[in-house]
């Protein structure tokens, strides 16, 4: 047991205790603690990743003194370590990206509360990634929901509270169904540890008994997690939640929170029930249909939006649709493409949110489409960042969007019946993305008339004025280009991780 092996457990505990501690600290120290925690966890995750890559196979870390079927345990593989590292990087950039907004929008006293929420969110994400026990997963799902609701509500305007309430209601529905599914599984298999459940389910499947309860358990869990990660028909809460909350929480919510649930779903597919049983159970066809619908309808409603942040929120619905379409293809290549898309969407979406806030700063803080004309000239870096984000969303080569579109297309080829529907949906949604993203890019680069700028009081924003936001944008652009240009090692990493995953 090398010392490195208990880094995952330490990082979960660290972020868990950082939460309550920062409640007593004042604003400055709470921020420093939070950043320290994120950086520390990032370093620890890299150490774990290197260790696991070196050892070449995953390991189980039992907590408490009870042996397997009763005690709790964490299972760490390449995929988990990589995801943890990536989530830390993105969270770090989102947090430092939104510093300015937080100064303006949150009252003095509430700052450290914000950092509590961020720490708890990080802790629940790490737990979701590492845990090998279903009920612990459910508990951390709840913690995740509550902290995300706190992040939305931190801005205290009428809209955010209403958005938080809607978010809470929909998430409770989702977690209710998830809990029901877990209880069904528990009643069927008698275990809560994922590997044991898998053994039992294999026996049941071999015996051919309890087909109906098993199927209902799978459906409940997938629909529950679909509701929580805002798949198409259950996405009504998303635009308000992401559209009106403060910048860093919108960025964190859109890139990380919904991805945590999707990762849990992947874990359930692979480690709890076994992917081949899932394939026979036709649940993935339902997810495929909802995914395709999400891809198209998400972009269609984004085209109708005239508020830039809500438009980006709607585009997240479309991208979540992409991921579920990847699951729906029912091939391991599809899962790899979806996981890659989780990474690329996280990077691109946070870049877009931060860039759009940069643009709105240069347009007198109004999110309205018509005030943004020519804002690309007023805030050069934000304009460039937004263009990079949009090009990546549209799938222009050299950016991460292109690689994930390529992986999805290659995965679609392996499934004989769904080739055409998937490829056509990909092409149509690229066109729809072009319509609303590049329309905005053209708008921010058509110069506004002189007198309009003066009487509306827009002023230019130089790069060094908002240093933290600029750093965040530059790093995210670099991350995006990194994902786009050297994607070969990453895909190989995910592939190896998935083999070990089962």
């Amino acid at each position, binding site marked *: 047991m090398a010392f490195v092996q208990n880094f995952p457990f330490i990082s979960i505990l660290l972020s868990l205790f950082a939460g309550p501690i920062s409640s007593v600290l004042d604003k400055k120290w709470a921020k420093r603690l939070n950043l320290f925690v994120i950086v520390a966890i990032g370093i620890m995750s890299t150490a774990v990743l290197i260790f696991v890559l070196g050892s070449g196979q995953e390991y189980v870390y039992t907590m408490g003194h009870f042996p397997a079927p009763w005690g709790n345990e964490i299972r760490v593989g390449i995929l988990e370590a990589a995801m943890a590292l990536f989530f830390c990087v993105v969270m770090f950039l989102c947090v430092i990206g939104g510093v300015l907004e937080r100064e303006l929008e949150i009252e003095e006293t509430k700052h450290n509360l914000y950092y509590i929420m961020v720490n708890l969110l990080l802790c629940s994400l790490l737990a979701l990634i590492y845990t090998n026990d279903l009920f612990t997963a459910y508990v951390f799902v709840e913690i995740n929901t509550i902290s995300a609701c706190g992040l939305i509500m931190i801005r205290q305007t009428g809209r955010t509270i209403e958005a938080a309430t809607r978010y809470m209601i929909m998430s409770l529905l989702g977690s209710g169904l998830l809990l029901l599914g877990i209880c069904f599984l528990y009643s069927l298999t008698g275990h809560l540890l994922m590997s044991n459940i898998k053994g039992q389910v294999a026996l049941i499947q071999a015996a051919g008994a309890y087909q109906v309860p098993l199927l209902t358990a799978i459906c409940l869990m997938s629909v529950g997690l679909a509701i929580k990660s805002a798949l198409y028909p259950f996405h009504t809460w998303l635009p308000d939640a992401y559209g009106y909350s403060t910048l860093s929480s919108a960025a964190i919510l859109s890139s990380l929170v919904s991805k945590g649930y999707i990762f849990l779903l992947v874990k359930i597919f692979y480690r709890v029930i076994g992917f081949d049983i899932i394939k026979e159970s036709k649940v993935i066809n339902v997810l495929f249909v909802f995914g395709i619908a999400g891809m198209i309808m998400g972009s269609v409603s984004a085209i109708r939006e005239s508020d830039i942040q809500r438009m980006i929120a709607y585009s997240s619905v479309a991208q979540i649709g992409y991921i579920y379409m990847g699951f729906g293809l029912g091939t391991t290549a599809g899962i790899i493409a979806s996981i890659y898309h989780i990474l690329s969407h996280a990077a691109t979406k946070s870049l877009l949110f931060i860039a759009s806030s940069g643009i709105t700063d240069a347009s007198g803080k109004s999110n309205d489409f018509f005030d943004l004309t020519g804002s690309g000239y007023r805030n050069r870096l934000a304009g460039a960042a937004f263009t990079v984000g949009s*090009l990546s969303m549209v799938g*222009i080569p050299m950016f991460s969007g292109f690689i994930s579109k390529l992986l999805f297309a290659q995965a679609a080829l392996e499934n004989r019946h769904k080739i*055409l529907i998937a490829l056509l949906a990909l*092409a149509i949604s690229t*066109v729809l993305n072009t319509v609303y993203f590049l329309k905005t890019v053209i708008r921010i680069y058509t110069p506004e008339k002189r007198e309009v700028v003066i009487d509306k009081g827009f002023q230019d924003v130089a790069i060094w004025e908002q240093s933290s936001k600029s750093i965040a944008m530059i790093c995210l652009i670099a991350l995006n280009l990194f994902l786009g240009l050297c994607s070969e090692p990453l895909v190989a990493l995910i592939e190896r991780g998935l083999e070990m995953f089962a």
Partner: protein
Amino acid sequence: MNSYIMVIAVLLPILGGVLIPFLPFGKRNIMAAYIEIIVLITSVLTFMLIFNRPADAFVLFRFTGQLSISFRLDATGSVFATILAFMWPLATLYSFEYMKHEGHEKIFFMFYTITFGVTLGIAMAEDIVTLYFFYEMLTLVTVPLVLHTLSREAVLATRTYLYYSIGGAAFAFIGMIFVLMYGNTSNFIPGGVMDLSKMGGNINLLLLVYVICFCGFSVKAAMCPFSDWLPQAGVAPTPVTALLHAVAVVKAGAFATLRITYFSFGTELLRGTWAQYLLMALVIFTIVYGCSRALKETHLKRRLAWSTVSNLSYILFGVLLMSPIGLAGALTHMLSHALMKICAFFCAGAVIYKTGRNYIHQLDGFGKKMPWVFGIYTVSAMALMGVPGLCGFVSKWYLAKGAVESLNPLGYIGLAAILVSALLTAIYMLTVTVRAFFPEKGFDFEKISDVEDPNWVMLLPLTIFVIAMFIIGLHPQIMVDAVAGVVASVF
């Protein structure tokens, strides 16, 4: 000739272009000299490459295992490269004069020179991934050019252009995926790379994907359902409409369709199938539709743009014949149409530059005052009509030969369509000449006293193009042998 020269030929204009706004130019003509030198060097490099082609490929950058940006100049690519290398220096020379009146020249010339590098990249692409990469870059790089005037229509035109091009590329992406997954290699191999055994012999799916990919790439070649963006792009300054929307961009689309038909999917697979007939029907409809719309247009540049739509479908018709003669016809028409159309657009540009008049009914009596420009316009009109002795006749001859030899009724209908469109071309081109040279009886020339020919900077490219037209028309042997060499290498 070693192969890294290819990369220099592609990257030099791109880097040269990017530097333009940042280099401190004292006077305007220092910048002009700088740009002209860069473009000339690239053209010279390209011609050196064309005359002794490097055998091996050059991999510039490798995304993943299969995906790489790599260049290899083969015979077909060199035809497209010749057009670009021959026309770009002259077009840049022309645009120095033209852009005096338009604003922010630095941005314009930056993207104008970058487009040269990107189109060369398309010509020299070794595999379908590089072609797709530069195809997308071409759209992005030409958007600022179309958006140059930043007027209301420019913004709308750019938006349509973007949606059509990126949409087309998205559908072409499906074709690329099929080639990557089911082809033996992603490189362009004459005769096609697809092996049916890998995809379980489902030929109809392959044909459907070919149709989708063909339509995707031919959005840029302005095939019928997607040809609305080309006339609207006429709102851009003339050097853009002339070089890009009559030569570089649209030819890139036609070239891409040629590549996938002959080098990726392979003609044995496609000849005689429903895919070929469906696309041929579409192309034939575009030939006639383009001309009839041109007839109705009164705006000079939009009329020429519609005529480009129809002439491009000549090239696509040649490509779709899928026979050696058809390919020869497509390539010769690509060459000769580039010459004719850029000449016509530059004449229109000269008229707009000197008099600011866009509409045909304002051109009465201009022939007397601008004899040089309208003389050249008439010659290019004759060439477009296919009068023997000019380059138009040569390319129509090969297209017709291919159509007659194809022995299928659709080929004959295509030939009839080409002749009908030649007649319509005669009508909409010569009405301008008759109006210019033979105004009505009581026309007083004082009203247009300010009209006179532009200076030598504009007229030099025009004269060179006309001479080239006559040379190819009267002595087509040079072009015919070059194209025969290309066709031999493909079949």
